């Protein structure tokens, strides 16, 4: 009899724990990283009564997290790939926008220069038209310099973003190390919220850096990047990361360079690879324009207004060491533009202007094929192809990541209907156990208070 009361008590306790767990699940339905929890029950071992073995009620063995490692690793791998592709494609898209083609880019300025040559060819002695040629050089220089400068600023902004991402990642690594200790100290029953928090940190580390993780038997997690263990709790102290402009992401202390994935890897790929490639093409284009224009100018004769004085072999009109300082040479004005054939001091001779005008569609002298406009286009279209490819990859990776995230939320998240059912189930169970207790109580009451009074 008394055993029944004990059993009912365990049932009430289990019901309470079940209600509490379901309530906690409902409360955390929207908490990021929360894993739904379930009460694990087991029946107590029976005792040997005179008539046979009778169960002794129910035990709450544990409150377990419904987490699947496979879903986690898929979400993290796709998260790292999506972080990489999104960061890179975002920066490439900005690079392309800063180039401003086709409506507000270098091509329009370059065509403006060619137009100025053609207009001067109609009236080569006209000083206003010669000044117009110089002004068109200045406009082209301004456009190319502005592209070069804004690209550098973009790279600087990328590096700053990488620095702050690494500072944050270092904090996350430290926090993972700390949680590892807590979890290991708790032994076989670690706190579910600590595990959830650690998983959330590992998610963020994956999308930022593309780290890999390995769970050890004591519940601790090792975090590695590119084969280097960053977190190896109770074996080594946490190794932090920083950004070096030449070596990329390095491990503090040893200075070992590591290849990062995720957002940091994407920015690094842009800063260290994509941008320098296209920037080198822009530098080359600027130097080509400088060489073509200066070669042609040196091959003609330039007149002062009215033809009062002549210079055989015009001075260099453009000066540049790279795209960043491409522009007019010092002290150049319209009278420095060589219009006549070399040595032919005829004011209306446009021989050399026609050589300038031929730059529009002919190979520049001394540089060979192709013409300047083709060189510009191959740079622009090359960047366009790289960007288009990066954007397409980013779309694919983001879609995969969204899928993996949704799959994980479907597996780990809280389904409110399920929890409602479980609440009702536990509530009913509690009521039923209470009813059982009442039944035993009434039986005992009869036994204790009515025994021997029968028939009195």
């Amino acid at each position: 009899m008394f055993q029944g009361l004990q059993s009912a008590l365990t049932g009430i306790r289990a019901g309470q724990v079940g209600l509490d767990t379901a309530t906690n699940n409902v409360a955390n339905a929207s908490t990021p990283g929360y894993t739904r929890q379930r009460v694990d029950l087991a029946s107590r071992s029976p005792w040997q009564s005179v008539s046979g073995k009778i169960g002794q009620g129910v035990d709450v063995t544990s409150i377990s997290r419904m987490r699947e490692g496979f879903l986690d690793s898929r979400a993290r791998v796709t998260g790292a790939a999506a972080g990489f592709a999104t960061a890179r494609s975002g920066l490439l898209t900005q690079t392309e926008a800063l180039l401003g083609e086709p409506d507000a880019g270098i091509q329009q300025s370059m065509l403006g220069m060619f137009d100025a040559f053609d207009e001067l060819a109609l009236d080569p002695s006209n000083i206003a038209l010669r000044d117009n040629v110089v002004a068109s050089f200045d406009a082209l220089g301004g456009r190319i310099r502005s592209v070069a400068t804004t690209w550098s600023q973009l790279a600087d902004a990328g590096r700053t973003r990488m620095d702050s991402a690494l500072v944050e990642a270092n904090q996350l690594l430290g926090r993972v190390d700390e949680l590892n200790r807590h979890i290991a100290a708790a032994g076989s029953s670690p706190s579910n919220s600590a595990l959830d928090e650690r998983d959330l940190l590992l998610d963020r580390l994956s999308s930022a850096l593309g780290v890999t993780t390995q769970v050890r038997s004591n519940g601790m997690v090792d975090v590695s990047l590119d084969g280097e263990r960053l977190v190896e709790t109770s074996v080594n102290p946490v190794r932090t990361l920083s950004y070096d402009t030449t070596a990329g992401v390095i491990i503090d202390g040893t200075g070992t360079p590591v290849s990062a994935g995720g957002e940091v890897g994407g920015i690094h790929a842009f800063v260290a690879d994509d941008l320098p490639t296209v920037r080198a093409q822009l530098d080359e284009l600027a130097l080509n324009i400088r060489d073509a224009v200066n070669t042609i100018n040196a091959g003609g004769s330039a007149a002062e207004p009215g033809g009062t004085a002549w210079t055989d072999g015009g001075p260099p009109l453009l000066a540049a060491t790279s795209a960043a300082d491409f522009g007019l040479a010092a002290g150049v004005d319209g009278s420095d533009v060589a219009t006549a054939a070399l040595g032919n001091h005829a004011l209306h001779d446009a021989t050399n202007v026609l050589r300038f005008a031929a730059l529009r569609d002919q190979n520049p002298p001394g540089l060979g094929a192709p013409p300047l406009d083709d060189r510009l286009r191959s740079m622009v279209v090359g960047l366009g192809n790289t960007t288009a490819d990066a954007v397409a990859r980013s779309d694919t990776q983001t879609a995969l990541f969204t899928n993996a995230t949704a799959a994980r939320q479907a597996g780990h998240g809280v389904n409110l209907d399920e929890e409602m059912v479980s609440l009702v189930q536990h509530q009913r169970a509690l009521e039923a156990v209470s009813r059982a207790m009442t039944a035993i109580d009434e039986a005992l009451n009869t036994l204790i208070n009515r025994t021997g009074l029968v028939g009195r």
Partner: protein
Amino acid sequence: MRITSQAVATRSVDRLNARYAGLERASRDASTGRRIHTVSDDPAAMNRVMALTAAGRMRDQEVKAASDAITWLNTADTTLQTAMSRLQRVRQLGVSGASTLPADQREVLAVELRSIQNELVNLANTRHNGRPLFGGTSDGAAVTGGGTAFTYSGDNGQVMRRVGPDDMVKINVTAQDAFFFTAPPGFSDNVFALVEDMAAAIESGDTARASAGLDALDTAMSQISRQLTTVGAQTNHIEAAQMRTADLAAALSTERSDLQDVDIADAILRLRSQETAYETALSAVARSLPPNLASFLR
């Protein structure tokens, strides 16, 4: 399959974003009238668009150069026609002077001839847009001198105009070409001195020389007439080239438009269908986030 409200929310937001992006793209296309906005939208097409833009600008300049060339040639034509009509007058005066006339009448003829000579020198030194029309590429007077001593002071520079793809045309005629020639026996080698020769012959009453001068005058006129023919032929060539170049420019801009611009009817239709798709997605999401079991348990 297990579904949770978070998973439903994630997927729904993702789908809504995709639909919204589609709507944004359709509305951008319709409002800008462009199919491709940046190079990465379609690198191959944009490569072509940029090449067509460059070629179109080149054709524009060629059309301009052709207009300039036609103005130049028209001025040259008018000037040479005037010179021809003045020489006709010289011929009339020469015919009158070739018969025996009293001294005062011969004097009148000689005065008119010398004034025509002056006119002819001025015609040869005509300037067009501030530069000598018949002086090659030099800046000074094309013809200098006086009396019977005239020289060509210009140069042999060519004035070139590109009026079409690979169509470079020389448009100038020099005073050397138009007014100088191989000297007929006993006369000067240029129009200006020849007129003075005539004036002197008539003034002195040398009728034989005056009538011989008429033959020399014919040589001079045929020289100018040849140059008029050249100018006329160049004008025809350039007018044809200008029309062709303008046609090419139009074709380039049509092709560019085909590559870059949207078909308006198609763009509107796509905008409409994207709008409908977005609204459908919105209402689908609104339905897929229903109240849960809690609302029905009492």
